[in-house]
């Protein structure tokens, strides 16, 4: 048992680091690459970096070589990410395309589609977004209502998608639509590639409770899509979407809480006093710190177990759902506790970064699978517990109660 690379992994890591050192500057201690900005210059810089990586064999590591990848093992992709994270590089705005949509096209696309899109996706020449969720279909994705109707050799899309990242700088989107409302819920869906610059596509940013606007609503009004942009058969959209989402789980993986962590809390407790003594000596404070710390370390070491499985060439299970299920609520609890520790000053945003964390963390508990969905996944796929009774099976989609009729 150790934390070391195999010799093969070590060689790969050295090679990756050499490339990075030759092209980008390392991060200073404590410095973070910004991940929030999405202005045109940042997008351009990101595309430039992606192209450089692609041209040198460092993009889409696990993709097959024929599509522009390196054919690398998953553990090598992890090693690359670890190394790249130590350098000052532009934000990665290609993850949804490369992590989820590319693999979907490989599995379900036509040879023409793969030819047309994958190399440009890999190089960052064209950026992609995902158009799945709707205002009325979140956890219950298959409840989506955006329609696609045949119109000659094309399709006409009408409806509304939500929680789309980067919609305004994306060239293409992957969209699931309902093509047959008389079929059963999961049977009437079809998957398309949609041109985000097409007439009838309207993008509106969504303001979040913390003031950020990382996501968009996308409205479709009679947007025409050629049948050549259909992915897989009509009515097969649910299966295609599942491919996309499985790749999402694989790529989201051990998303660390982000924001301030337990070390920051320890620092805060070292600065404050309770009854004339450092808060860090207060036993209640110590209990809470230890509780946060132990759970976060548990997540971190669970990640190490996952990496070990990858290193051994095994496929990690849905255990990865643990990470977000633990860290997202924990980030909220930690911020809440830190604010409480600040007592009267806790009500002011400027008191520390924990106020931002308090406003940001609820979103983590919802995005990319709510706490509730993650618990269902663990219960059903890991523990093998039965699903809930389904009220939306065996009847046409249009007859399923929606509460709005």
């Amino acid at each position: 048992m150790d934390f070391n690379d195999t010799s093969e992994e070590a060689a790969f890591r050295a090679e990756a680091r050499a490339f990075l050192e030759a092209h980008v500057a390392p991060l200073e201690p404590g410095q973070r690459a910004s991940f929030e900005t999405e202005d045109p210059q940042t997008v351009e810089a990101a595309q430039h970096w992606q192209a450089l990586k692609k041209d040198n064999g460092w993009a889409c590591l696990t993709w097959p070589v024929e599509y522009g990848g390196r054919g690398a093992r998953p553990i090598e992709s992890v090693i690359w990410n670890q190394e790249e994270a130590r350098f000052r590089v532009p934000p990665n705005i290609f993850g949804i395309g490369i992590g989820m949509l590319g693999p979907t096209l490989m599995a379900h696309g036509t040879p023409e589609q793969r030819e047309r899109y994958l190399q440009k996706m890999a190089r960052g020449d064209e950026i992609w977004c995902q158009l799945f969720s709707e205002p009325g279909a979140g956890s219950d994705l298959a409840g989506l209502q955006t329609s696609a109707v045949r119109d000659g050799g094309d399709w006409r899309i009408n409806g509304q998608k939500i929680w789309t990242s980067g919609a305004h700088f994306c060239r293409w989107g992957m969209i699931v639509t309902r093509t047959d409302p008389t079929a059963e819920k999961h049977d009437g869906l079809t998957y398309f590639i949609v041109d985000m610059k097409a007439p009838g596509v309207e993008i509106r940013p969504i303001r979040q409770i913390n003031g950020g606007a990382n996501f968009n609503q996308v409205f479709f009004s009679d947007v025409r899509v050629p049948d050549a942009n259909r992915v897989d058969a009509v009515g097969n959209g649910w299966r295609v979407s599942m491919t996309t989402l499985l790749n999402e789980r694989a790529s989201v993986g051990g998303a660390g809480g982000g924001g301030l962590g337990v070390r920051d809390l320890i620092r805060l407790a070292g600065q404050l006093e309770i009854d004339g003594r450092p808060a860090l000596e207060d036993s209640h404070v110590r209990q809470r710190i230890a509780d946060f710390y132990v759970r976060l370390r548990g997540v971190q070491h669970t990640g190490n177990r996952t990496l070990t499985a990858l290193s051994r060439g095994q496929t990690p299970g849905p255990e990865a759902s643990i990470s977000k299920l633990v860290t997202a609520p924990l980030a909220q609890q930690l911020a809440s506790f830190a604010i409480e520790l600040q007592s009267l000053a806790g009500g002011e945003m400027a008191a520390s970064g924990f106020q931002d964390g308090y406003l940001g963390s609820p979103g983590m508990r919802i995005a990319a699978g709510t706490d509730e969905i993650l618990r269902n996944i663990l219960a059903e796929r890991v523990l093998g517990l039965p699903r809930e009774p389904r009220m939306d099976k065996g009847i046409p989609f249009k007859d399923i109660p929606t509460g709005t009729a």
Partner: protein
Amino acid sequence: MNFDFSDEQKLLQKTARDFLQEHSPLAVCRRVLESDDELYAEDLWSGAAEMGWQGAAIPEEFGGAGFGYLELVLIAEEMGRALAPIPFGSSVYLATEAILAAGGDEQKKRCLPELASGRWIGALALAERPGRPDPARIETRLEGGRLTGTKRAVPDAAAANRAVVLAAAPEGPALALVDLDGEGVSREVLASLDPSRPGATLRFDAAPAEPLGPAGGGWEILERVLRRAAVLQAFEQLGGAARALEITRDFTLGRYAFGRPIASFQALKHRLADVYVAVELARSNCFYGAWALEQEAPELGEAACSARVSATDAFELATTEMIQMHGGVGYTWEYDCHLFYRRAKWLAASLGGAADWRDRLVGELTAGGGA
């Protein structure tokens, strides 16, 4: 056993609710929250004053309505339900209570009518740094009728024009009343976790200040005031928690997934039941706090801590679950969940968090009082 409000008191509560439904829908809270220069809803403030609410617990001889505390707590509950964006708590539960507790007769005659009418908006300036306040570490000085020092994160201080300030006088901790529009005072409005209740940093540079209560007795008076305010604010928290639960309940009934209302999923049902329990326990503890407040009972210390702790917990739980159960839309600026979520945490901070009050509670219990 008569552990409930009277029909007259409930009628007054209904009147308050009706008034606030008309004059303080959530859009008003949102308006102040989103505004850069509207520090509080002035129309609502003066409307409340016309109803006599700022003076609810002020005797008629000092210009108040003289309703009493059992009435004031119910107004507070409605303020909480409405997320009223006015400095009611700071002015009424804190500043007014401080003058009632410590003011001389002349001061009461002069100050209380101003507070009752709403012309004065009071705040309580206590903290000087993050962390639990400590009487041994007060750096703001009061000497010769002049106040010098800096008070940080003073709740509602953006809107206030008077402040009761905790300061160190030669005799020990003292309270002083300061005109915030007067000489020697500057303020920096702060971004609040709940921007519908903006606070401020107050800087005093030999600002004229009049002592409130005996010199050296400021900390004891403050403790008394905080205890009373804890009960009043607990009702505000209770009102917010109950409303958050109602809104969440209604949303989960109307929102369908997998062919049925999400309110029919046991994960949500059971947690909504837990929120309900938390709200009801808070309500019961608040009732007891109201009784002790109105009676000036020896149990007030314990009752205030219990009410404060359970109402703080209930409001935080209800609003955390509110966002989570709304799902994605709950995390949007457009929905009202964050108004509640912010207010809950802001109210928790504004009198010191639940941990402070838990600790204080055990002090009350082991000092020989309690149940």
